[in-house]
């Protein structure tokens, strides 16, 4: 597949934004349980606003993928069958809940409404729980867009969903750690620990996905594509000399060496390097180091997403093996 920059940016920004919101609300939950010191409302509010701006950036990037962005509103209509449509519905819902959560903290509407045992339930808690559910649903919707396409056998796996979930939350918690470190907040260590755990879990999931795809045998062959049962079968012409949509959309046009290079880069930049950097940042109480850890991982995730696309070989490519 051709890796479209708009989609790379869309999925990485959304993942980081969703992860950051989850980190903010996790911080609040831990503080309610007295595992962590309670932060000021401003901490949760500006963190959630940062998450919201990442989600907005992702939404903006998605428009560049569309041929007719002015009709994007129509995309909400087929939620019964299309995961893309479901994402189009869940994304603004998530953004709304994140914005409401930020606003609740910003305006200090945190007076308890009622009590469940020792738990004082306020508006931010309710919005946080709803936002968490929406965020997780958004991860599933985004990943299922890719995982549901059975003709892209590299993507057609539950590992695609776990990758999106774990890589997104890892980068979000890494950003939360950087955000806390930048504020000089004691939660940096907490977010950093979770970022490391999620990064390692993501490494397992992505590693398993890479191994699966390395051993993948495609279901279709040139023989089944044109229905001629002969071992020696070679394409001589594809019906167009200057390429077509089929050659532009489904081929990345890079060498196998470039692919290996990108894979090596993301395997270093997403997993071990940010873990080392965030540990160093914690040891040396360095906010720049923590920001670097997030930055390196984010760039690595963009490379990871590029590779995710480039690695996938669509069944239709069997019809486009040579020009003439």
């Amino acid at each position, binding site marked *: 597949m051709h890796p479209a920059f708009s989609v790379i940016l869309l999925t990485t920004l959304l993942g980081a934004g969703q992860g950051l919101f989850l980190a903010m609300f996790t911080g609040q939950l831990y503080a309610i349980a007295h595992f962590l010191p309670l932060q000021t409302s401003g901490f949760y509010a500006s963190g959630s606003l940062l998450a919201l701006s990442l989600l907005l950036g992702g939404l903006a990037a998605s428009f560049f993928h569309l041929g007719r962005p002015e009709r994007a509103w129509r*995309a909400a209509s087929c939620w019964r069958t299309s995961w893309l449509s479901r994402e*189009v519905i869940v994304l603004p819902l998530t953004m709304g809940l994140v914005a409401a959560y930020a606003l609740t903290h910003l305006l200090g509407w945190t007076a308890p409404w009622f009590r469940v045992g020792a738990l004082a339930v306020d508006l931010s808690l309710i919005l946080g729980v709803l936002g968490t559910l929406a965020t997780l649903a958004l991860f599933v919707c985004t990943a299922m867009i890719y995982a549901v396409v059975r*003709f892209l056998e590299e993507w057609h796996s539950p590992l695609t969903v776990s990758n999106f979930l774990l890589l997104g939350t890892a980068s979000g918690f890494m950003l939360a750690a950087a955000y806390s470190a930048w504020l000089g907040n004691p939660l940096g260590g907490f977010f950093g620990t979770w970022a490391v755990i999620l990064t390692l879990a993501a490494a397992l999931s992505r590693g398993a996905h890479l191994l699966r795809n390395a051993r993948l045998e495609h279901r279709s062959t040139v023989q089944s594509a044109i229905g001629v049962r002969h071992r020696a079968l070679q394409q001589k012409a594809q*019906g167009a000399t*200057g390429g077509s949509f089929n050659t532009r959309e489904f081929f990345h046009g890079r060498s196998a060496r470039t692919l290996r290079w990108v894979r090596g880069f993301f395997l270093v930049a997403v997993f071990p390097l940010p873990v080392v950097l965030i540990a160093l940042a914690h040891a040396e109480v360095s906010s720049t180091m923590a920001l670097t850890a997030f930055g390196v991982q984010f760039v690595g995730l963009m490379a990871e997403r590029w590779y995710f696309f480039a690695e996938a070989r669509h069944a239709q490519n069997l019809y486009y093996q040579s020009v003439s």
Partner: protein
Amino acid sequence: MTQLALVIDLNVCVGCHACVTSCKEWNTSGAAGPLVDEHPYDGSPTGTFFNRVQTFEVGTFPDTETVHFPKSCLHCEDPPCVPVCPTGASYKRADNGVVLVDYDKCIGCKYCSWACPYGARELDAQERVMKKCTLCIDRITDDSLPERDRQPACVLACPTSARLFGDVHDPDSEVSVAIRERGGYALMAEWGTKPANHYLPRHKTRMHIAPEDLERVDNPLRREDLTDYTGEESVDDVAW
């Protein structure tokens, strides 16, 4: 229920591209707007086509055969491109089974092209919507045309009648008989998309001609036959 489809006979397709040009001509001139054609006379012409003829070589030189393979939307009975469309622009007509795109609803997200294993859908670079073979829906449903013209442009253009058009759900139609009696098959049947279009396989047409087929052994005009009769009659004298 009717399911209109094409049956393409690979045994007689000569790869002349007449179906490609007539398809482009008809479909670029209709009410749905032109099909883009970029750099048509330059080094790398590209554009939107509903139908393309590809060429494959079977075997190893010198024992090779050339297979010309016209490829267009197969109008699957279970089209995987339809449910993934977020806007409902991609649909299958209930009355005749043709898979179509509503160009006014399409947002050009290309998702349906990912969900088609045959590469039958193309994004039009100028109109920025997804386009595909319509089986010339504006011809085949136009009652003002004479009956023989109510066929896709590619079928009418084919000089070798390699393209048959009809209802594959009617067991007595020309296409159903061709599929049944001439080994019609579906492409990439392993995906369960149930393509309505079928292909007829190549087969060797060999005729064995013995010398006796060219010249009668007991040809009465042969020299040795021009002998003087002596009154007796042979079987040939009474039977020819």
